[in-house]
């Protein structure tokens, strides 16, 4: 099936506008718009143009290799893939994690979400939020933020660095470590490592609180604009703890529809395929998942910080819970549907991570030596985790020789595929429909995509100065407008 503005009725007579690549997101994607002679939008699509093939080339590899191999999907959130795969392998070897192993993995994951959220908010999103969506392009980047708001930039860098240090001490390296292995972890924290992290955690909580205050202030200064930007209603899906709390590492699946009503709750993710299906469309390498009971048309949903904060009953750390309540009260207590509310909830989660890290660092289980377990073996394993960008599903089958024979990965950005396309269409209609093309207007589309913090490929990414070429071609195929940004960031016609 197709959605409104997904496919134009007569595309051959329309002019095509391409934003390629979309910038300040992880990976490579493009947006295509088809417009008529009056610049009315007839088609808007967000395409993912990379093909990775991980699900195929891990076939034949030993299962022990998978948590380290598949994390190469991403250079920003490899820990998420590392842990989701490890959880699947726990199931395959029948492991029930020891308290030390689970807490060390949770610590690693908190560090991961913290650094990823800091990266996104300060490096990628803050230029739009601080300077305006159509502000001067030459300074609409992290360097511009550092010049105009040096303290904000400094805190952003320091928050990300701290999260990376947590990862280094639990996984062995800041990027692509090996800490989680089937059945547990391969190292604990030494006393010196714990004290090293304890030294700065108070400051990180203060700065995380400051980041929440900053986005709250920006958002509430123009509430109608921020609420209305790319607005649409959708379902949300996330993991929740058995008591309904926000839980980034483990839990049951909860999905609520656009009216905040349960679709399913506390679902055992070990049989996710009974509830979530994927549709393939010919114009994107990314699939379109949907909730089976609601069908292809109605079953799409959003995941990530907005989904998690909307879906959970409470956040189990005090400062973040206060902020969740303020956030909920902002929209009268019901689930907030605004696209740009992703930024606000992302910072609430970063505060939760900082608090969670502090709690864990006072737990002596992190220093324990009981790190591995195993039990009755199985040939199939499913691991689900809440990655920074949303629910991440890893599903593997092995043979009797312990080789991977099948893999299915549904990554966070894939869940958000339809939602991002919807946001692009809404913004295109709101801001571009019938207007002259400008870089600032096109950036509105990118702002909507960036709100989701999509990880498009994941391992390749660049900040700010990716080359961008936008062409406006009329109905006869003649180029009538053209914007080019070269690799040094300079713009020209």
């Amino acid at each position, binding site marked *: 099936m197709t959605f409104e503005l997904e496919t134009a009725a007569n595309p051959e007579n329309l002019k095509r506008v391409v934003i390629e690549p979309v910038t300040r997101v992880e990976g490579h994607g493009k947006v295509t718009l088809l417009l008529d002679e009056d610049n009315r939008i007839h088609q808007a699509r967000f395409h993912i143009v990379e093909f990775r093939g991980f699900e195929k080339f891990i076939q034949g590899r030993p299962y022990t*290799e998978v*948590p380290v191999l598949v994390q190469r999907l991403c250079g920003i959130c490899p820990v998420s893939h590392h842990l989701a795969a490890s959880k699947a392998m726990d199931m395959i070897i029948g492991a029930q994690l020891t308290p030390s192993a689970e807490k060390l993995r949770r610590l690693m994951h908190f560090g991961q979400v913290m650094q990823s959220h800091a990266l996104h908010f300060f490096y990628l999103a803050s230029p739009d939020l601080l300077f305006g969506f159509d502000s001067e392009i030459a300074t609409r980047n992290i360097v511009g933020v550092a010049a105009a708001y040096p303290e904000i930039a400094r805190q952003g860098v320091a928050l990300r660095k701290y999260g990376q240090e947590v990862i280094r001490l639990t996984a*062995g390296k800041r990027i*692509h*470590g*090996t800490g989680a292995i*089937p059945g547990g972890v*391969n190292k604990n924290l030494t006393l010196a490592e714990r004290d090293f992290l304890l030294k700065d955690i108070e400051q990180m909580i203060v700065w995380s609180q400051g980041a929440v205050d900053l986005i709250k202030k920006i958002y509430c200064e123009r509430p109608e604009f921020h609420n209305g930007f790319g607005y649409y209603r959708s379902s949300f899906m996330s993991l929740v703890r058995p008591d309904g709390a926000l839980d980034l590492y483990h839990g049951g699946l909860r999905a609520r529809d656009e009216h905040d009503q349960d679709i399913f709750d506390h679902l055992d993710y070990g049989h996710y395929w009974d509830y979530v299906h994927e549709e393939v469309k010919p114009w994107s390498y990314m699939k379109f998942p949907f909730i089976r009971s609601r069908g292809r048309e109605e079953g799409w949903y959003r995941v990530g910080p907005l989904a998690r904060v909307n879906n959970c009953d409470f956040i189990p750390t005090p400062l973040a819970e206060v902020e969740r309540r303020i956030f909920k009260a902002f929209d009268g207590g019901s689930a907030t549907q605004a696209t740009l509310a992703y930024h606000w909830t992302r910072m609430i989660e970063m505060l939760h991570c900082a608090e969670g890290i502090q709690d864990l660092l006072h737990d002596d289980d992190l220093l324990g030596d009981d790190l591995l377990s195993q039990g009755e073996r199985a040939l199939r394993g499913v691991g689900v985790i809440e990655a920074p960008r949303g629910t991440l599903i890893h599903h593997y089958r092995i043979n009797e020789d*312990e*080789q991977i024979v099948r893999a299915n990965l549904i990554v966070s950005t894939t869940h958000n595929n339809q939602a991002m396309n919807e946001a692009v269409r809404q913004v295109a209609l709101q801001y571009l429909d019938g207007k002259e093309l400008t870089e600032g207007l096109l950036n509105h589309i990118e702002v909507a995509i960036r709100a989701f913090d999509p990880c498009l490929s994941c391992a390749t990414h660049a900040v700010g100065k990716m080359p961008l070429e936008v062409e406006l071609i009329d109905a006869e195929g003649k180029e009538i407008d053209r914007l080019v940004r070269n690799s040094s960031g300079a713009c020209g016609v």
Partner: protein
Amino acid sequence: MSKTITIDGTKISFTEGQTIMDAALAAKVYIPHLCHNPEFKPHGSCKLCTVNVNGRAVSACTMPASDGMEVENKTETLDNERRAIVQMLFVEGNHLCPTCEKSGNCQLQAVAYCLGMMTPHYNHFYPPREIDASHPDVFLDRNRCILCELCVRASRDVDGKNVFGLSGRGIGSRLVVNSASGRLGDSTFAVTDRAAKVCPTGAILIKRQGFSVPIGSRIYDHKPICQVETEGKSGGEHE
């Protein structure tokens, strides 16, 4: 009076019957090598230990030391040639260090670092190589085999089993298993065999142990192979 050879201007003593490699290792002088392991009969196949003796290129692991021998080891020319050999080994196989559980414990990787290899330089062959997971305890990944024959020698000379051998010629050479089906699971191979723990790369892996050693505790995490080898650890010990 003891007999001596000179390696790069330094005199070291040796006993009758020692090779240049034996004498060098005893004197804590590192000569790069991959197919050599003091535990087994020298093989002379990888050519990494090529040194110049009185103007002639010889394999240090097979050339007997003789009194007064002048050996050139650490020269720019020799290291350039060694680096090229290692680069060729990398492109002839499928060595994916980032996801290999032997990373940090791998002699091929360590030697490459030691020789300053920054890129593979040559075009990758990406050869199709067979994986054999049929054994209950050991995974045989031919993608990473460098044909050093250490497993062949260990199985034959220590384990007394002759499980492994090389077949084919030139670029078609490959590691084969001595069983009716050609599969490791149908051979007499056991995880306790010496041959199971002698592979300098990640071609022979013990199942269910991947990545159990954390980063920071692996053999070459803190010291380069030239230091590890000359501090008494023999090549090929990679439990």
